[in-house]
């Protein structure tokens, strides 16, 4: 137990993806401003990422066979196997991508358990914040309150009026029942294995298709403008909506391009999307024909590009919230953080989903008039051009988004989250 005057220690444990990691950074920044001491439990590979934002890090041990070469080989195999799957629709991805990904997620939970339990013993946090899609029994056993962050789309929490998770469907789509059945079938083996693991760790198994229970507090990013009216509303004493969760970043100054005129368009497909250099190369060829300036996040693959057009600027990393703020259009993969940043800054989204909840956000962007969906596999130069020009010219959408942005910025999600976490202590 900490002394009366000591700052409460909040241990963040985001999954090994940038969306979750940076979402937690935003909340941790706000908690630090409020006098708490946020610390991060890091997956291998994220070492140093949180320290650069000023937070203390605790590191999970490398998983067995986790050398740099093994990880590079694993990624190469992942790319070879899954790149074609990203062109499939959400239902066809269930057996090809979703099922093996859930198996891998269960593996990460099992691998992390012992190391995580040891770190939590060392940190002795006053609260734990988990931003992931799966529960770690060590958190349930840590003896302090824990917070679940749903940083994916709201579809992660099932409800009769919310579309099925990862489906890309509307809530009332006739295909709903078929998708739900197929999802249950595709995830059954991983789910059974995960429940066996939970029992062995002394915590109760979860119902079919559910890999993560709700915390003492559950926070959802889902902004009001795209939120669903639930058949069973979430009780306000254990759930809070954040209306996005946008962190403070350093300022981005667009370097001078040979083409100095035109609205700025940002393309960021996340680190997973950046792997598809062939697709981005095709898109850049279309950008060259448009009267706009394009900032393109190509991740660690800059050397895959040559003869970059005069109206395009490539980078391996951008302080995304600052870039989005200055953009007239954001082309993204439907990652929930990206979608929320677009709404927060009142910028239209052109969503090209790859997988997971990208499908759900693409559907939601169209349904709420905050953006447009374009399929990865079924676009050509003309359809992409038309989509970009249409979104750049859509005054009604811009006005709608400005109102959404105003409401979100008036009460930032990072502050709401930090206040809710501190109230839990």
């Amino acid at each position: 137990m900490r002394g009366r005057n000591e700052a409460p220690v909040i241990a963040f444990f985001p999954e090994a993806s940038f969306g979750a990691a940076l979402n937690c950074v935003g909340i941790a920044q706000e908690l630090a401003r409020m006098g708490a001491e946020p610390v991060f439990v890091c997956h291998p590979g994220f070492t140093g990422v949180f320290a650069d934002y000023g937070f203390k890090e605790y590191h999970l041990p490398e998983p067995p066979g986790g050398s740099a070469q093994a990880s590079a080989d694993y990624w190469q195999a992942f790319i070879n196997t899954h790149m074609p799957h990203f062109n499939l629709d959400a239902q066809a991805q269930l057996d090809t991508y979703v099922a093996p990904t859930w198996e891998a997620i269960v593996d990460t939970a099992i691998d992390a358990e012992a190391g995580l339990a040891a770190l939590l013993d060392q940190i002795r946090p006053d609260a734990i914040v988990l931003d992931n899609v799966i529960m770690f029994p060590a958190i349930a056993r840590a003896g302090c309150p824990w917070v679940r962050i749903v940083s994916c789309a709201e579809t992660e929490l099932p409800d009769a009026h919310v579309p099925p998770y990862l489906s890309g469907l509307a809530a009332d789509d006739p295909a709903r029942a078929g998708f739900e059945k197929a999802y249950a079938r595709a995830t059954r083996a991983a789910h059974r294995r995960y429940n066996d693991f939970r029992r062995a760790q002394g915590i109760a198994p979860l119902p079919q298709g559910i890999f993560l229970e709700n915390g003492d507090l559950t926070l959802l990013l889902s902004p009001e403008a795209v939120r669903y009216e639930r058949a069973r509303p979430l009780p306000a004493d254990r759930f809070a909506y954040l209306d996005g969760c946008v962190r403070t970043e350093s300022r981005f100054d667009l370097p001078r391009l040979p083409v100095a005129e035109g609205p700025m368009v940002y393309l960021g497909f996340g680190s997973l999307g950046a792997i598809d250099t062939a697709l981005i190369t095709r898109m850049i060829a279309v950008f060259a024909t448009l009267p706009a300036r394009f900032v393109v996040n190509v991740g660690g693959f800059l050397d895959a590009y040559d003869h970059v057009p005069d109206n395009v600027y490539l980078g391996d990393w951008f302080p995304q919230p600052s870039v989005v703020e200055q953009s007239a259009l954001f082309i993204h993969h439907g990652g929930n953080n990206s979608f929320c940043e677009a709404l927060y800054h009142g910028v239209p989204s052109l969503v090209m989903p790859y997988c997971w909840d990208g499908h759900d956000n693409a559907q939601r962007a169209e349904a709420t008039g905050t953006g447009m969906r374009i399929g990865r596999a079924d676009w050509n130069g003309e359809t992409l051009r038309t989509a970009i020009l249409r979104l750049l010219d859509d005054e009604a959408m811009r006005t709608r988004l400005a109102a959404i942005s105003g409401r979100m910025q008036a009460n930032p999600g990072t502050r709401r989250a930090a206040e809710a976490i501190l109230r839990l202590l």
Partner: protein
Amino acid sequence: MAEPRRNARQNHLALAKQVIGIALERGLQSGEHLPEQVYSEACGVSRTPMRAAFKILEENEILSWREEEGYFLETGPQDGLTEAAQLLEEMEDSLATRILSDRAARRISDVQSVSALVRRYGRSRNTVLNALKILARDGIVTQLPGRSWAFQPILDTPRSIEESLQFRLILEPQAITAPGFALESKKAGLLRAQMQAHLQTRQGRIGSASFMRIDTEFHGFIAECSGNRFARGALLAHHRLRRATQKDISIPDFRLRQSLEEHMDILDSLEKLQFDVAADLMTLHLRRSRIRRPDAANRGIVPLMRGPNA
């Protein structure tokens, strides 16, 4: 005589851009006063070049002059101060910097013929050759047998940035401990004042371009003070290359500030003639400055790290 005049003009333009950078960082609004003394110190120059820079800004309607009061910001951040900075950049532009910046942005490939450059930039053969000679002086391009020119490695990929850091880890601490290191205290004081001014800005207001400028100035200054002439030459050329080609680094605000504090700790040790401590602090600073970021991450998979030390 035309060349020195042109160089002076370029310096004043660069200084004017620096003034805008400071105004943006400090969140200055239209109508606010820019005291000459404060800006001279912040930029590490005397008042004469600062007056020339203010004059350029006045000519471009970014500042206004009031009798006996001085210069005031006319164009605030809401009225297009960033765009005004870009206009100045265009005025400053020389063909050599355009070629280098196009190479760094991967617009042109690493081997170029003079005629291809003549076509791209619409300039005479002689002008292009002069620009290439300027770049060759810094070792950025070399002439191949025949009419082509080849770019040397620049800091445009995660791998080359990592290699640059490893090179600096070998040489920068050595540049301090080599016999004959002599700190130029006046310049050290000016650099310290610039870094302190950056630290006083609001969170999130330090731009990456402005940080890069002060970072390369600091490390270039350490190299200049070294007693080892070869270390000095190699490091100065390398920092020029960093400044010209490594522009789009995006570092969280916390790390930018921590980095500036580390620079000042190194200066503290040098001023106390504790060269070994300063060299150790330099090693620590460079190790902390390594950008540690997975190239790819996805749920269920160990993140992908590349680079020599991954």
